[in-house]
């Protein structure tokens, strides 16, 4: 099982994400944003949190144009797995791999604290380690996590059961309390909260561990 973690200038959760993958049994390649291709045999791509390119223009906008993002898009078009966390979620929406966009928090403040998250579906490689309806605690740390999509897109996400997580108490103005969504084939997850920051007892919480374990269960060689 191989994971690739993309590193942009300004990424700051890349190593945390790599450790979370490793603890679940993945071997991890760190991949620089200027690389034009992913290593051979990568099962899942992780797009980490941070402040790629200093959030210039829009969060994730410049990163989305980097050479490696074209390779990530090709990987997902071929049915490959990917997870984008925080800034990684912003990058995945900017590339168009996931629908919608992340706006400035409605309260205008950067928010850094652990929040309650409701698991909306257990029907994905990422969320099958939880039960739908579970409320878990994961940290958020963002200034631009206010999920926006038009009415038509929201209706589609609901009809296709593609809302992975919602906030128990909406901290940032996200439409329909959305904290994380899945791609149409359920193999790409974008989420603002940080499961990789709740994946070790030293983190003060381990509710994120089940996400990485579930992925390992799906991607382990049969």
């Amino acid at each position, binding site marked *: 099982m191989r994971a690739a973690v993309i590193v942009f200038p300004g990424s700051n959760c890349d190593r945390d994400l790599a450790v979370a993958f490793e603890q679940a049994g993945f071997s991890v390649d760190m991949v620089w944003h200027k690389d034009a291709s992913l290593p051979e045999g990568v099962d899942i791509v992780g797009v980490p949190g941070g402040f790629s390119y200093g959030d210039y223009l829009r969060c994730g906008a410049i990163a989305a144009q980097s050479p490696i993002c074209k390779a990530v898009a090709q990987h997902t078009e071929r049915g490959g797995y990917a997870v984008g966390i925080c800034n990684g979620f912003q990058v995945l929406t900017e590339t168009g791999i996931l629908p919608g966009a992340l*706006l400035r928090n*409605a309260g*205008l403040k950067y928010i850094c604290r652990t929040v309650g998250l409701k698991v909306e579906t257990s029907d994905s490689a990422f969320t099958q380690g939880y039960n739908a309806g579970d409320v878990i605690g994961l940290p958020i740390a963002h200034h631009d996590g*206010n999920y926006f999509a*038009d009415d038509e897109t929201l209706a589609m996400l609901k009809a296709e059961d593609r809302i992975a997580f919602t906030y128990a108490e909406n901290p940032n103005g996200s439409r329909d309390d959305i904290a994380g969504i899945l791609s149409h084939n359920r193999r790409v997850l974008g989420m603002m909260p940080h499961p990789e920051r709740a994946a070790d007892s030293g983190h003060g919480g381990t509710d994120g561990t089940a996400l990485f374990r579930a992925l390992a269960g799906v991607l382990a060689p049969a």
Partner: protein
Amino acid sequence: MKARVHVMLKNGVLDPQGEAVRHALGAMGFDQVEGVRQGKVIDLELAEGATEADVTAMCEKLLANTVIERYEIELV
């Protein structure tokens, strides 16, 4: 040749920064202000031969996120 691109959040997309500015203006006594929307102005210096279509492509691909933003191009 120069182009000026105006990028604004679409109508219907909440603009919390604009709202904060509106509140501040109201608190200062400018009670004639009924709404504020804040956007970006991007000036481009272009080589000879560049066309408005080129700038449109730049807006669609990078300068604006058309999920949430609209843009206007002014050639100057």
